């Protein structure tokens, strides 16, 4: 049995307008940072999965990311596996 914590980073597909990123980028100069570009705001999802093995757990997170955690029509995702979570 493996219990593992994962992080799923969800981003808007490149090329799509990111209103949030645009607004943040627009706000930064007034705070003194004019040296920031390409701001994109996405989601960061953490979860703990119990599965037979690490590989199984990861495969399941992958599937969750496709089906529920991201919207494949407009988003992409990346998975980070954290240290083995304490049982």
């Amino acid at each position, binding site marked *: 049995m493996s219990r593992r914590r994962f992080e799923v980073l969800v981003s808007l597909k490149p090329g799509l307008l990111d*209103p*949030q990123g645009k*607004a*943040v980028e627009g*706000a930064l100069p*007034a*705070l003194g940072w004019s040296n920031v570009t390409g701001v994109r*705001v996405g989601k960061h999802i953490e979860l703990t999965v119990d599965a037979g093995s690490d590989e199984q757990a990861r495969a399941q997170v992958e599937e969750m990311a496709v089906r529920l955690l991201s919207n494949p029509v407009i988003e992409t995702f990346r998975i980070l596996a954290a240290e083995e979570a304490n049982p």
Partner: protein
Amino acid sequence: MSEPRPRVGVITFPGSLDDRDAIRAVETMGGQGVPIWHADTSLGDVDALILPGGFSYGDYLRTGAIARFARVMEAVAAFADAGGPVVGVCNGFQILCEAGMLPGALIRNRSLRFVCKPVDVRVETSLSALTEGLIAGDVLRIPVKHGEGQFVVTEEELPRLEGDGLVVLRYCGPDGELDDRHNVNGSTGSIAGVRNERGNVVGLMPHPEHAVDPDVGTTDGQALFASLLSFAAAKV
């Protein structure tokens, strides 16, 4: 000679929506509404301030997160420090929290859905600029309309809020009873509005400016505006 009408500044941030409504409500209640632009550095000669509802900067990133850096906010902080009454409604509440002028934060509603409907709120204290004319226990029917109105504070902070009487309004039933089913957004302690220690800065999620004109809703917001105006007049 007619009495001086308290001048109430209403700040328009990019994306503010209820600014015109707030000015109208102030005027209906006998005050003088003064539009203030987010990029202004001075507030002019106002006796009270309202940060209105809406979606400043689209509510992007976090509600109020960007607006709290608006140029006018320095003047707002100074005004509050000097004891001037400052009321944040909905998005204005969120901005004041982000600016650290009020405790806590507002996150997405428990339902994850925007909600627009009249709710009942119970006055918890008359020690605030917005409620000094009311009595704890009074129940007001006022509409809410927000997607991110769930008030949260950390566990360490909550006892201070409650202990110091910083809670101004709570969601309740028609007779003032507290029950989770009346907690429209899942707020901690059913909190609908809070104040700072001095009581001159108040934030609330319900929209009293949409509850002054009997043609388009309830009139329970009138009492809150009356309090604000008399608080402001005391300064005049």
